[in-house]
């Protein structure tokens, strides 16, 4: 079992730094997959994927992509969790969609991990209001300039290096 596979079961218990590391890890290691999924989504307007114990349904309507999620085995998808305006230019659209997919998978991994045993605490869906691809994430909503300054000061969590080393990704 790779280190990343171990983390598929730790959703609720990850620290914020670890979640950001997983987002960056997904962005680096699944970029090719995300690009081909982005092309499918642009073509077909809908796309379903899954990660850990969750399923994700993407939908593209009027130049805006959104996703809904559900635990595997549940009947209905819940409400739209995030949305993002994308460019009419394919290259720019794919660039944004790749980030959107990594964010969606990190969100789903957080909420629907592969549990080895039932979690005693009943939890509702939780997420960061600002996605990792938005500089407002780093500034807690105080604007992109502060966000940019905070981002460049922030060091990557050691988990990112460990995940990349564990997957032999160069």
């Amino acid at each position, binding site marked *: 079992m790779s280190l990343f596979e171990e983390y598929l079961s*730790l959703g*609720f*218990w*990850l620290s*914020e730094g670890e979640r950001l590391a997983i987002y960056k890890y997904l962005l680096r290691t699944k970029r090719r997959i995300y690009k081909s999924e982005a092309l499918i989504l642009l073509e077909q307007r809908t796309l379903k994927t899954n990660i850990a114990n969750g399923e994700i349904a993407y939908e593209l309507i009027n130049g805006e992509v959104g996703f809904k999620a559900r635990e595997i085995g549940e009947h209905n998808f819940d409400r739209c969790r995030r949305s993002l305006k994308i460019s009419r230019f394919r290259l720019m659209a794919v660039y944004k969609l790749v980030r959107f997919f990594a964010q969606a998978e990190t969100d789903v991994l957080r909420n629907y991990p592969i549990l080895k045993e039932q979690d*005693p*605490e*009943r*939890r*509702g*869906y*939780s*997420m*960061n*209001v*600002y996605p990792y691809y938005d500089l407002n*994430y780093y500034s*807690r*909503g105080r604007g992109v300039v502060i966000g940019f300054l905070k981002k460049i000061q922030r060091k990557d969590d050691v988990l990112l290096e460990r995940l990349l080393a564990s997957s032999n990704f160069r």
Partner: protein
Amino acid sequence: MSLPKPRPLIPILIKPVVPAWVLIAVIATQVVIMNVGNRNETSCELLFQRPHYSTSLQEKVKIDAVKLNITSSCTENQLHTDLVATISSISGSELKILNKSGVIRQDASREDPTKAHFLEFWTPCKRGGVVNYIGNAYGEVTLRSGKVVPVSNSMDKSLAVLCRPRAK
């Protein structure tokens, strides 16, 4: 010789025109209306659980940590709550921020949609140490009706927590 007509002791102008019982009835009605109005006003509050050593974090990710659970509770159903929470330690008069969260959105509980339970705020601790913790949080609640209610609160006082699992 005619005597002047005596003037009334209480001038006519200040004599009550409205009977006393009507006045009481008007005041009573106003009080009732105000109470009904207040009852329609939605209020939300943040409730803090005692900070505690997290057994689940020790079991799952093998770290020693102190957890602070927070619940936002409203008088009507909510959609979700957005919060920024801070866990700090107090030593003498020195306050040190140990963990400040990002802006976290938590869905309303399925069992009781008037509440949203935040179970992910924690900070690592040193095994065997005792630290005084205090927490505060601010944010806003989005109600099912679409109304947004700002909320903020902090723990009344700091609480000492021993960083060690309870003996079974």
